[in-house]
């Protein structure tokens, strides 16, 4: 393994993303997830690993939790979820979250 290579944790990576409306105490969620489906009938819970921003996490008893605040609007979850649990919309520019890419 080579030295000095900047491998980053997902938290460090998301720390480099400029999110919108950071000052707002409560942003409006743009993705709705019926975690009841994830936690009852879903055989793979794939969003907990395919999401590039780790917005879907498993707790210690294996339950899926979703938070939209770190979402970088890629859309992966709306295709990867084949169980109908994800309702995906774009964030509202005014009171939603979402990104402002500096590089893109």
């Amino acid at each position, binding site marked *: 393994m080579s030295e000095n290579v900047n491998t*980053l944790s997902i938290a460090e990576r998301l720390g*480099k993303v400029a999110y919108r409306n950071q000052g707002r105490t409560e942003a409006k969620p743009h993705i709705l997830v019926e975690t009841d489906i994830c936690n009852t009938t879903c055989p793979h819970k794939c969003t907990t690993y395919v999401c590039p921003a780790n917005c879907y996490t498993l707790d210690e008893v294996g339950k899926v939790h979703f938070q939209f605040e770190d979402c970088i609007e890629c859309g992966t979850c709306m295709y990867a979820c084949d169980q109908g649990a994800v309702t995906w919309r774009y964030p509202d520019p005014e009171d939603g979250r979402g990104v402002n890419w500096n*590089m893109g």
Partner: protein
Amino acid sequence: MDERFDCIIVGGGPAGLAAAMTLARADARFLLVERGEWSGAKNVSGGVLWGRDLARLVPNYWEEEDAGWERFVNHRRLTFMDDGASFSLDFKSDHFNTPPYTGLTVLRSRFDAWLAGKVDEVLEESEHGESLLATDILVEEVIKENDKVTGIRAGGEEFFADCVILAEGVNNLLTRQVGLQTDYVPAEGLAVGVKEVIRFEESVLRDRFQLGERSGMSNEFVGYASDGVEGGGFLYTNRDSVSIGLVLGMADLRKAGKKPYDLLNQFKTHPTVADAIRGGEVLEYNAKVVSTGDMRVMPKEIYADGVLVAGEAANLVLNAGRAIQGMDYAMRSGILAAETVVEAKKVQDFSEAFLQHYRTALDNSYVMQDLRGFQQAVQVLHSPAMFQQVPRLVCDFGREFFTVDNKPTKKAYQILRDVRKEHIGYWDLIKLGSRAARAL
């Protein structure tokens, strides 16, 4: 607002801006609505803009000092990898050095903003001055009357036009709303792209990659890069940074149970890649859903009464092994959609029957000819052997062929025969080879 436009364009990326530029030059009255705070604020690509279509929109763009592109590509490399080695096809040629260039590295937040500025310049020069690029507004809904698209609802207001061009990108919610795309698009036929932009001192970057003032390199990677998952890696040089990332088949990633950002870390620690990016500072991490060129996930149609679909909203992206093309397709489709609108305006006919001319024009362009002609290539490149056995075989061959260790040396064909046996059946290789030869 009770003004009426000839055309409303949804999305200020390359497709939408190409349409806007075309309409601006034809003096058509349009409204472009972009949800980002600026054009590019929501947009991500690998990214290389291939081909010469940019010169159609901004003639002599290369003469402008602060144009929005990073470097022109005059050095191309395709690298096969296993866990310890890499074997590259490397091509550099001075014929790439003459503008209009055939490949430009871009960072979309800058590039799209620059291109939007060029459209604004044309609008300022035009006499009418009634067209508009509006940013920071999300289009919530397409308005339909009697099955014909007549406008949009955005920011609580309604805007009306003779037709609407949807250039909303791969997550084409409005294309679905008007019924041209299915409500649920399955993961098969789509990929996830993850990327980092890593900064270097410009002199360091130029020395490390042997770059000229504005020349650059594009490098694609197959094999270990994606750790057995369908897909591959890329590294492109920008002015003072590199874009490095992976494009991973979404269904395969789901099946493999792997995290895209873990795979990105693994790719970055491969000895070959680690040497290339040592000492850089990560500026940004991005992700994007990417169309793969599989026509089975394309919208059923790209036009209907009063509406046209352009760019990646129509899944116009192709990776046939030579280049991942998409931004050029976006521009060309945007131009052709807008040209159809200009013609429709002349005869005041925005019906489905007339807008079909867009479909014909796109079919006759390189965009659909390549997408159709390379469907087999898309399938071959998705076959596991291409990103598993083949790169390992190539690297094993290289390891033996390039190693001098003062033992009796095997001839190349013997090495090839021996490493082939380890990785893939003879007939499987022949079959794959002949399929690839026909498809690529």
